[in-house]
């Protein structure tokens, strides 16, 4: 009791000294050393990150990190239980030196506290689903009924990024019943909170098949006034060392947390050696960490250069997040998508023409049964929605081929074949119509390889309309996970939530591609017609 009052007095003194003199700023680190104890706020209700053991002691992943910090600062440790509601308030009051309590790093929190980089952990959102549910990608959940719990901060964001049909329930029990009764196919929840649920035998038959998304890094927080202090510097060094040495990963294993990809990546990043043989992630002359060692989403335009500076500047000034311009990974993803879409356009256009010409030639070949068969098939093919055809071939036939021959089917090939077949069937009829007209003009006309150009020229307008339509439909390849433009754009939206920007960029890019194809065909038509005149 006496001690507590003593610390309160010291805190008060420290506070008044900060207020009294601007230049000779007292560092909280001096206070901690003088006091000989580090006071850390941790959670008591978040197993196994912060909880009470049988003796009522605060234990867990976060208390362990606090102990490591105290050890490195060569001071004693005092843990104080905090809640999500009071942790930052206690910090500001000076009742505690720092908060290590599942605190996600957000811009709002950065305004009221100093959040320390590197981050020490990260949580994300994932789904819990019965073990026999087929789920391998987040897009498998698009439009499906997914249970969620009332008040979770990520509900709206997830519904918007992945187009989920969220069924909101009041609590964990209600969500579990709904999931068991099949009223939804999965339950959306915080991945770190699911860890403790998994220990419950009632959840034994459930799995988390999807990688965590909306990953938010957790930071140690100190008071806002301590920004740039030696205390901040010292804590950051300890956390960086804990990443380098694998201490955090060992702690994660000790507390039976599932392996977090965040910690694995951070370990890799912090142990990387540059071309000069020096560690990449070492403090710069300014005392800052290099930009590539920091969380990309926390950077501001003043901290980086080049395209990244330009992109972040636009984001800060206008709110437009052009990640596909400044983020190297997104840029690669977007350009790969664009290139695949261009390949799809060309392949489907040529494929449709090939199917159409071969079909029309066979139909007119004069072989008795074959001609009729081709006409009938083309008539049915024209009435088959291409999306269903893609599903039929990729999943239905694909399953047969894999189980019987062991060949996995390629999504790009399936999409090209199906779209070519669909548009090819319409092309057959356009050519046959042209052939009828030509027969009216020249009684001895027969559709053969040699007379095909004549028929194509006559059927130019309808055939081009068919080809432009198939170009517009190439996006359907995205439903079987071909990483083309739509897949790439929705993946970037899922990662960054910049829905407005990405959807407009996607729309404009696709529109320009279609326009380009239309103009190319128009130019071709002019040349063909000119040749006819001469």
């Amino acid at each position, binding site marked *: 009791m006496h001690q507590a009052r003593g610390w309160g007095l010291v805190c008060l003194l420290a506070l008044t000294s900060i207020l009294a003199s601007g230049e000779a700023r007292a560092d909280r680190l001096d206070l901690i050393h003088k006091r000989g104890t580090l006071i850390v706020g941790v959670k008591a209700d978040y197993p196994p990150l912060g909880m009470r053991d049988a003796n009522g002691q605060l234990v867990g992943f976060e208390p362990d990190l606090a102990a490591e910090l105290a050890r490195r600062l060569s001071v004693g440790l005092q843990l104080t239980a905090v809640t999500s509601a009071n942790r930052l308030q206690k910090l500001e009051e000076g009742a505690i030196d720092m908060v290590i309590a599942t605190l996600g790093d957000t811009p709002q929190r950065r305004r009221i506290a100093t959040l320390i980089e590197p981050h020490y952990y990260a949580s994300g959102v994932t789904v819990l689903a019965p073990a026999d549910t087929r789920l391998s990608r987040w897009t498998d959940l698009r439009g499906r009924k997914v249970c969620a719990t009332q008040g979770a901060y990520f509900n709206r964001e997830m519904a*918007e990024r992945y187009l989920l049909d969220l069924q909101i329930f009041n609590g964990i029990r209600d969500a579990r019943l709904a999931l068991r009764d099949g009223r939804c196919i999965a339950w959306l929840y915080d991945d770190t909170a699911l860890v403790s649920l998994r220990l419950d035998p009632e959840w034994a038959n459930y799995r988390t098949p999807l990688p965590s998304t909306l990953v938010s890094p957790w930071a140690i927080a100190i008071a806002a006034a301590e920004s740039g202090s030696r205390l901040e510097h010292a804590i950051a060094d300890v956390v960086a060392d804990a990443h380098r040495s694998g201490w955090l990963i060992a702690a994660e294993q000790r507390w039976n947390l599932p392996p977090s990809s965040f910690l694995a990546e951070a370990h890799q990043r912090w142990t990387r050696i540059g071309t000069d043989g020096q560690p990449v992630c070492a403090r710069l002359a300014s005392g800052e960490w290099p930009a590539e060692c920091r969380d990309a989403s926390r950077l501001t335009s003043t901290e980086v250069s080049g395209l990244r500076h330009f992109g972040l500047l636009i984001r800060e000034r206008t709110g437009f997040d052009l990640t596909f311009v400044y983020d190297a990974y997104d840029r690669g993803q977007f350009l790969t998508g664009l290139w695949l879409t261009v390949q799809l356009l060309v392949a489907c256009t040529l494929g449709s023409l090939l199917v159409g010409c071969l079909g029309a030639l066979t139909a007119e070949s004069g072989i008795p049964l074959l001609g009729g068969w081709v006409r009938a098939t083309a008539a049915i093919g024209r009435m088959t*929605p291409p*999306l*269903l055809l893609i599903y039929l071939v990729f999943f*239905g036939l694909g399953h047969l081929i894999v*189980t019987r021959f062991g060949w996995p089917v390629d999504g790009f090939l399936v999409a090209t074949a199906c779209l070519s077949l669909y548009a090819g069937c319409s092309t057959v009829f356009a050519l046959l119509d042209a052939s009828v007209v030509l027969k009216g003009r020249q009684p001895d006309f027969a559709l053969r390889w040699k007379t095909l150009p004549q028929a194509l020229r006559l059927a130019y307008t309808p055939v081009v309309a068919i080809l432009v339509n198939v*170009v*517009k439909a190439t996006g359907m390849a995205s439903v079987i996970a071909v990483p083309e433009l739509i897949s790439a754009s929705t993946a970037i939206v899922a990662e960054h939530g910049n829905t407005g920007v990405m959807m407009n960029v996607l*729309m404009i890019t*696709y529109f320009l591609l279609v326009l380009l194809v239309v103009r190319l065909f128009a130019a071709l038509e002019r040349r063909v017609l000119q040749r006819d005149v001469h």
Partner: protein
Amino acid sequence: MNAGYFNVTSTEILETLWVWTPFLASGFVWNILISLAAMLIGTLPGIILARMRLAKHQSLVHASLVVTELMRNIPTFVFLFYLAFLIPVEFEFSGQVYAFPAWLKAALALSVAVVGFVSDNLHAAWRHWREGDHAAALLFIPSWTSYLLIIVMASSTASVIGVDEIVARCNVIIAAVGRDELMLWIYLYAISYFVLFCFPLSRAMEAVKNRMQTRASSALSKKKRES
């Protein structure tokens, strides 16, 4: 075909399809409703654009041509995603919260193609009508109906944004049945709905068109003979 070859008996296949028929059929009703909604939504602006193309002011004609070209070249499938992501799930209007259902987003996306179609075809029909060739102008009606069938086929894409129509229901059945061998048959069965609905109607519309065309040409030659 020997169904046993595919590790399922034909009775199993028929039984599964029979059990799920009401579910799939009601899904197909959604496809037709979405398509009709798309046709209705797209026809009105199409009529305005077609009318503008016949205006005396060149600027009106020009504006209509630009908009029509735009509508013609917008890829419907991409536009579907665009609307799905950018129109909020619900919106507030004078204190009331209204939901914006996914099927309406699908109908809106599909209607873009309808605008272009109506603008082009009605423009031609209107000109025929003004020239006194009423029979040729009336060809617009069977053309419009044939276009509805194209939209019905395109409505299957609504499944990708979570509309509960026939293709989405196929995937629900596959997940519920849990037999990979049945996928092929379920998709084939769904395709048969489209073929059986669209094929006779498109044949009928072609027949109507042909009869109207012959009547139109005979009327025209009669007129010529009289004059």
